[in-house]
């Protein structure tokens, strides 16, 4: 069996001014090929004006199982939200 092709993650900017968003992944031999496959596979209906491809192995991701220790503490800081502050009704703010 030949060596499997590397996996790439595909991000598409649907419109100028918006962020690139993750749309899926595909296999390709190199980045240029991944870009062309991504164009063919993910933007057949004019979904995008710009594509990013990144080798999946280059993405470092946090694990949801670590969330408790990774994100802690958050719930004890409600004052980071504007709704925490009572502004009287007759003050326009």
């Amino acid at each position, binding site marked *: 069996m030949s060596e499997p092709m590397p996996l790439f993650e595909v991000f598409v900017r649907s419109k*100028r001014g918006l*962020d690139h968003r993750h749309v899926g992944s595909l296999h390709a031999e190199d980045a240029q090929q991944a870009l062309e496959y991504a164009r063919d596979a993910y933007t057949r209906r004019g979904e995008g004006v710009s594509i990013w491809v990144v080798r999946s192995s280059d993405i470092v991701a946090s694990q949801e199982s670590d969330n408790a220790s990774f994100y802690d503490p958050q719930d004890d800081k409600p*004052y*980071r939200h504007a709704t*925490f*502050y009572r502004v*009287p009704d007759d*003050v*326009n*703010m």
Partner: protein
Amino acid sequence: MNVADDASNEARFDARVAAEERVEPKDWMPDAYRRNVIRQMSQHAHSEVIGMQPEGNWISRAPTLRRKAILLAKVQDEAGHGLYLYSATETLGVTREELVDALHAGRAKYASIFNYPSLTWADVGAIGWLVDGAAIVNQISLQRTSYGPYARAMVRICKEESFHMRQGFEIMLALARGSAAQRAMAQDALNRWWWPTLMMFGPHDAESAHSAQSMQWKLKRQSNDELRQKFVDQTVPQAEYLGLAIPDRQLKWNAATQHYDFGEIDWAEFKRVIAGDGPCNAERLAHHAHAHEDGEWVRGALRAYRAKHARPAVQAEVNG
């Protein structure tokens, strides 16, 4: 690239901006536009970071644990906003080191408001209410700026910023409803911060060096005077609610224009502070430079850690 290419690129760029489309990092753009975006965004980033100093001054002396936790969270937000803006600036090919060097060498500016001292706890309230209030007026407008990464950073910042102004107003309200001494302290803070806050919007439109070009490029969406008027109109009723007097005898509702008329800014003071001769200019810059140098051991440790963990992999490759 020849002259004809440049001309057609410029025509395409102008058409894009005219059509309200955003300019993205890899697009062709005129050099002057690139320079102007770098100048404006890095100035904005520096302001977020230098702006941590007047409030940071009060973290250890906040009157209650609640106020301390809030102030800490706010100052932490400002650091984050600096990061978003530096990163967005770096999409234009300039490095963080160049930006920080320009600040330390005095080639880059930051908002002149942060060259005023925070003398009392009421100043923390006044900064949140007035300075963040003014920043929000400006930043809401910049959510539609023509440079894509800048506009997106503004959307994120505005969302986070909403608590900053409200916590400031809450402090002012507590003081305004407090003892006579607390009311006097709130009034004193308003007296000292009002005019410098109005200066934040910059010179009159006719005298602003970059305004006309920035408006044409849609980097700026509303003029300095328009934004300043908007701020005055929204803030006067808030001051009235607090029972505090805005230190401007010419301030008056104008029924014909449906706006407040207000007095003239002391432009000599504005120019003096911009030029470096404000009450705290030297202190703010020295503190930033010192903190930056002081942090060098942290960056060094990170580099050493990376080098240590990179080594075995390199060896494996060599051996394999």
